[in-house]
């Protein structure tokens, strides 16, 4: 056995994708040395409750540690971020200076919250982001102090869930977003308008089309207001910055991989690509950090920041890591997510990006209980359910099969479904110059 083979498999990233990947290695018979590296000092924990029941105070921040579904018999290196990868020496450098050898490597470092720049007030006290357990604990403690007004910047899933929780706590909330409705990027403005109505009903002050220029603080360095691009100011003593995430690839900067703030690029079998486009046969990636050509969407490079992808891709990459080069299975994954906010269970499947049409096929928009299917060029590409989850699997199958859009009713004597403009905002100009480098 070579020294590298003795080093075994190293998983960098001890969250959902890393854990489920490690479990799949053991389940598939890998009996060698297994090491998990995590930058947080915690065993893998579940993140979805953080922006919901942890903020509301129903669950303690440390309640959501994930079950381990098989015995891992692993070496855990928790609280030590990986800071460098040397592919030639097959070693990983940790923040504490330790160097670990690997034989095969699974990259599952996930993503990190986009922070507000310090130059425009981001370093003021009482400005929060929400990504990890510590973030949630700090934010929960600050909400329990009873702020006079909470300002949430960004009406995506996290921003809307936080707004819903803050209203449940009875706190005054202002929510800002540059788009005309909440959830405009994921669901379009026509469906997003339903959440805009929920915000209004629950007493959230929602300002569409609004951009923050900077935050101002008081003499003690605590945030007191936001200055908007249109000249308005909003007084707030607690700010939640919910502007999405960038992929945690900083540690790969000098590794010679196709990696940037948008992810680390893989082939269809989860194998990481070197900067020259060749496949690294001993390095795989899974979860939020992985960007791969999704065959269900014409081979488009996508990264999927959702729970189900972390579970499925972690296990898929692990299976391929143990298989010979000629038996690598392609990762075909239909993205899916869920959210609960304002008492509504929202579930979605597929990638709605580029949709040119949307049709309600069950229920009604007015009742806020419906299933809507998105289409592009006459094919169904995505679906979202508001409190109609049992219909979703049938449409997920139709999307996988590339079925007609609008969907065809069962009975031929019934009319066609009415279609609407979904109202997606124009694609963002690459906000991070290096994000577009390889795509």
């Amino acid at each position, binding site marked *: 056995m070579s020294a590298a083979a003795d080093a075994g498999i190293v998983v960098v990233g001890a969250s959902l994708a890393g854990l489920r990947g490690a479990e799949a290695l053991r389940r598939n018979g890998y009996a060698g040395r297994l090491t998990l590296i995590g930058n947080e000092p915690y065993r893998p924990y579940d993140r979805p409750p953080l922006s919901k029941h942890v903020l509301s105070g129903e669950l303690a921040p440390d309640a*959501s*540690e994930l079950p381990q579904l098989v*015995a891992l018999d*692993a*070496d855990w290196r928790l609280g030590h971020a990986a800071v460098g990868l040397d592919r030639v020496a097959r070693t990983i450098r940790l923040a504490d200076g330790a160097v670990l050898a690997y034989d095969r490597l699974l990259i599952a470092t996930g993503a990190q919250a986009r922070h507000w720049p310090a130059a425009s007030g981001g370093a003021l006290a009482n400005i929060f982001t929400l990504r990890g357990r510590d973030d949630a604990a700090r934010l929960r403690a600050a909400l329990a102090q009873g702020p006079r007004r909470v300002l949430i910047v960004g009406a995506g899933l996290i921003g809307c869930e936080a707004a819903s929780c803050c209203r449940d706590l009875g706190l005054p909330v202002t929510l800002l977003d540059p788009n005309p409705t909440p959830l405009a990027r994921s669901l379009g403005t026509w469906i997003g308008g339903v959440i805009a109505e929920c915000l209004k009903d629950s007493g959230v002050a929602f300002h569409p089309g609004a951009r923050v220029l900077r935050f101002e603080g008081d003499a003690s360095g605590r945030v007191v207001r936001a200055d908007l691009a249109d000249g308005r100011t909003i007084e707030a003593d607690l700010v939640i910055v919910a502007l999405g995430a960038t992929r945690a690839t900083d540690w790969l900067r000098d590794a010679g991989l196709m990696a940037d703030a948008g992810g680390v690029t893989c082939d269809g079998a989860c194998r990481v690509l070197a900067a020259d486009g060749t496949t690294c046969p001993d390095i795989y990636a899974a979860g939020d950090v992985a960007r791969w050509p999704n065959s269900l969407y014409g081979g488009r490079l996508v990264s999927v920041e959702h*729970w189900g992808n972390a579970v499925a891709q972690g296990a898929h990459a692990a299976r391929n890591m143990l298989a010979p080069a000629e038996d690598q299975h392609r990762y075909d994954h239909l993205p899916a997510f*869920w959210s609960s906010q304002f008492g509504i269970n929202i579930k979605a499947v597929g990638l709605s990006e580029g949709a040119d049409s949307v049709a309600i096929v069950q229920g009604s928009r007015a009742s806020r209980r419906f299933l809507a299917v998105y289409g592009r060029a006459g094919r169904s590409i995505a679906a979202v359910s508001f409190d109609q989850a049992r219909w979703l699997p049938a449409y997920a199958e139709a999307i996988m099969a590339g079925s007609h859009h609008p969907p065809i009713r069962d009975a031929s004597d019934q009319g066609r479904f009415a279609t609407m403009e979904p109202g997606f905002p124009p694609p963002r100009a690459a906000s991070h110059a290096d994000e577009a480098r390889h795509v």
Partner: protein
Amino acid sequence: MTHPTKTASSRTTPLRVVVDLNRCQGYAQCCYAAPGAFEVRGHEILFYDPAPPRARRGEIERAVQACPVRAISLQADDGETP
């Protein structure tokens, strides 16, 4: 290298439960099997305790078995204990 050690505290540490909410269809069978740990809110939002006390193991196992879409995972007894 640090190896996790099993200690007497494994008797007092809670169970670890996670539900795949992509898979969950809101059939609420878990709520009948383990009413202290699972609850449906509104039409179909499942709220659950991810760290129920060990004394609930029997009812949680019944919930795992009762789920028609097998969405509930419970830490295996041979899983490592931190």
